[in-house]
């Protein structure tokens, strides 16, 4: 039983890391209906910029601030150069644009900072320690706490601030938002900047775990099952989806893995997502249209 709980807790915590990536998608999808394939590239760009600054002797917090500014600049640029010209186009066109965008961002990151792998040390030891009788990873706990702070901040932003309310208004009905004078372009720029910030946080944590390298942008593929399970429009869903994926893939690895020769972690989330797709196509927390005339 103790072992089971330990696997479960480890899985849940690892799942938070997936949620962090998924939240970036949810933000952009909610506000503009675009599945932003470039989110992974943004994570990479942020992590690479941060670590390169650090390696050039820039202090930790200054590197963080500079990277954040770079992400905001990137968001403004994307809104100007990609979203604005493509306004009113079908979602598939926008998706293709973000696909192209992801290559541009990756290319820019490479041209700017080179292609070698960097280690990233956030100063948190990735060693197990005992908590309530369970052996847990200190790093995972740190990641979970970071995610908790991030989600709380975002939900305050969306419920208490004018920009947050406007953002939810645009997500609900862009035409009505336009009719009352909300500037869609400004909202998009803000959303992409916030998604860039979330990408930075995810990039630092994933970079510290895996090393900062180009495969980092492939974590988009890990976020996809999370989004299918949690729904594309809910931050809470992204969290729960991440937890479900994290826990079930670890449990499957430990309990089913030996029976069929291991390696389950790589494909299990997709099978799970497929099952969810059959039962709840909108995801657990996806916003179904409110049915009411």
């Amino acid at each position, binding site marked *: 039983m103790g072992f089971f709980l330990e696997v479960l807790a480890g899985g849940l915590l690892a799942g938070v890391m997936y949620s962090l990536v998924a939240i970036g998608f949810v933000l952009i999808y909610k506000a503009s209906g675009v599945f932003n394939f470039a989110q992974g590239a943004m994570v990479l760009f942020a992590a690479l910029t941060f670590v390169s600054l650090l390696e050039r002797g820039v202090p930790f917090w200054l590197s963080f601030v500079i990277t954040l500014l770079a992400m905001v600049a990137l968001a403004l640029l994307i809104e100007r150069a990609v979203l604005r010209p493509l306004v009113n186009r079908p979602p598939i066109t926008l998706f293709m644009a973000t696909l192209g965008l992801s290559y541009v961002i990756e290319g820019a990151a490479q041209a700017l900072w080179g292609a070698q792998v960097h280690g990233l040390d956030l100063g948190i030891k990735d060693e197990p320690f005992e908590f309530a009788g369970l052996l847990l990873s200190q790093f995972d706990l740190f990641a979970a706490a970071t995610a908790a702070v991030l989600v709380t901040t975002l939900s305050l932003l969306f419920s208490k601030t004018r920009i947050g*309310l406007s953002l939810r208004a645009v997500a*609900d*009905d862009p*035409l*009505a938002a336009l*009719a*009352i*004078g909300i500037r869609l372009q400004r909202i998009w720029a803000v959303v992409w900047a916030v998604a860039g910030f979330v990408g930075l946080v995810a990039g630092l944590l994933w970079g510290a775990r895996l090393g900062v390298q180009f495969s980092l942008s492939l974590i988009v593929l890990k976020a996809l099952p999370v989004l299918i399970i949690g729904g594309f429009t809910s931050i809470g869903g992204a969290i729960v989806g991440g937890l479900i994926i994290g826990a079930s893939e670890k449990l499957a690895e430990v309990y089913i893995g030996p029976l069929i020769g291991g390696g389950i972690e790589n494909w299990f989330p997709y099978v799970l997502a497929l099952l969810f797709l059959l039962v709840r196509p909108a995801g657990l927390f996806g916003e179904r249209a409110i049915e*009411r005339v």
Partner: protein
Amino acid sequence: MPGTPILQLERIEVIYDQVILAVRGISLAVPQGGIVALLGANGAGKSTTLKAISSLVRAERGEVVQGRILFDGTDITHANPAKLAESGLVQVLEGRHCFGHLSVEENLKTGGFVRRPSRADLSASLEKIYHYFPRLKTRRHSLAGYTSGGEQQMVAIGRALMAKPRLILLDEPSMGLAPQIVEEIFEIVRDLNQREGVSFLLAEQNATVALRHASYGYVIENGVVATEGTASELAGSDALQASYLGGKTVASLVAA
């Protein structure tokens, strides 16, 4: 009509998708402080005309290709919708378009943001809206998507009012509502017109109700103005009955 009208359309033409000519040379005027009705059957071009004025046609791949639109004498033909809302011209869309996942109060608040009001100003405006729509105050914390059709129409109008507009373009407020609720909403419109001095351009299929509250009306047919006149002239006119009500008289509609 004495003085400069608050709104003037000079032979405007509107094209969707660069091929569909939906409005073919409409001219009309709304006097300061007036309520003007825009009547016509399905697909006549009422909504397109309103969206041309508010510049929202551009969000639907439409464009004003001919003519001019003047708001308070200023050319606004190609103005940005946010600028228009800021300067006091707001549209209430056909079908209400509330933000379904926002509460009633949040919906109202979003309408005021365009003025960049202080916190105190925003809550004062809110109280004023609740004064005109007491029903909304009791539902203030409900999600707008779960309120009744009539309440949603009130939210949509209240939200537009939060911008402190001088002219509201109101598209089919009666759509899908019980006669009693329609009456309630039109009473409030008249109240707002008289007490706050808000002018209205009102698109309606329901000519009977619209002409009872408007002072002047235009009947649109296939994207052109077929008839115009004062409300009482139109209510009794054969042209209106023939072209738009398919032969039925207004009186028979009232009876129905």
